[in-house]
């Protein structure tokens, strides 16, 4: 799975930063889904996802965000998206996700929104 990589960084006790790199599609999305699922098992429901280095997303990748957002909200958490590239933002817009997900320009802005 060289087309996609995730870096995980725990910023504070109660929220986690994920940095997505590369291409998130029907081939690579399961890695992202597994990491989200692991975080939920550890009761980490406040997640910042920096997608500034994500070059591409298809519906399979967007589906992980959609499923994760619903679970996070049920558990009083959230999924915050940081700096989508225009091609990725386009997919969010087509699906109407830009109105649902909090989207920030920087990780700092996203962190401030959580504190």
């Amino acid at each position, binding site marked *: 799975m060289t087309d996609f990589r995730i870096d995980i960084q725990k910023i504070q006790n109660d929220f986690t930063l994920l940095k997505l790199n590369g291409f998130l*599609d*029907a081939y690579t999305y399961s890695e992202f889904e597994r990491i989200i699922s692991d975080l939920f098992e550890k009761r980490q429901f406040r997640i910042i996802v920096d997608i500034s280095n994500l070059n591409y997303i298809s519906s399979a990748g967007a589906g992980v965000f959609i*499923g994760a957002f619903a679970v996070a909200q049920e558990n009083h958490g959230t999924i915050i998206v940081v700096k989508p590239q225009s091609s990725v933002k386009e997919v969010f817009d087509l*699906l109407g996700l830009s109105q649902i997900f909090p989207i920030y320009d920087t990780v700092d802005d996203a962190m401030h929104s959580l504190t």
Partner: protein
Amino acid sequence: MTAGLSERLVLNSDLKHLNLVRKFVKRIISKAHLKLDDEHRIVLAADETLSNIIKHAYKFNRNGYIDLTVSIDNSKLQILLVHGGKHFDVSKLKNKTNDIEKRIRQGKKDGFGVFLILRIIDEIRYAYKNGQNYLTLIKYLPSKCCKKND
């Protein structure tokens, strides 16, 4: 480009080829001088269609084949996908795209690919002949497309 342009790629039904297919489609449709957003959308529609064929028609069996032809003429861009999997007509899945906002709010993860394909592509044709599925995605081009010297 009155005679048009057409290129073909045959691959097995493995999701690992998605990136290759995106690059292939992008390289050809870039000759239609579309806006970057439109180009990206068409690549996305091709990706979603291929993913759906592998998922629904081949049930993730990697031993199948998908024969992909991308063609451009003065009026349209056409992506033909021929495969030997189960009958699979994207346009018949329209009901899965109903009430997309509600599905998103409920955290449902599937059906969005078909929604995207139907939003992006102008016309979808499907036929089943001699044990093969012929799925054609058609995007009509703005009239200024495809200068003759391209």
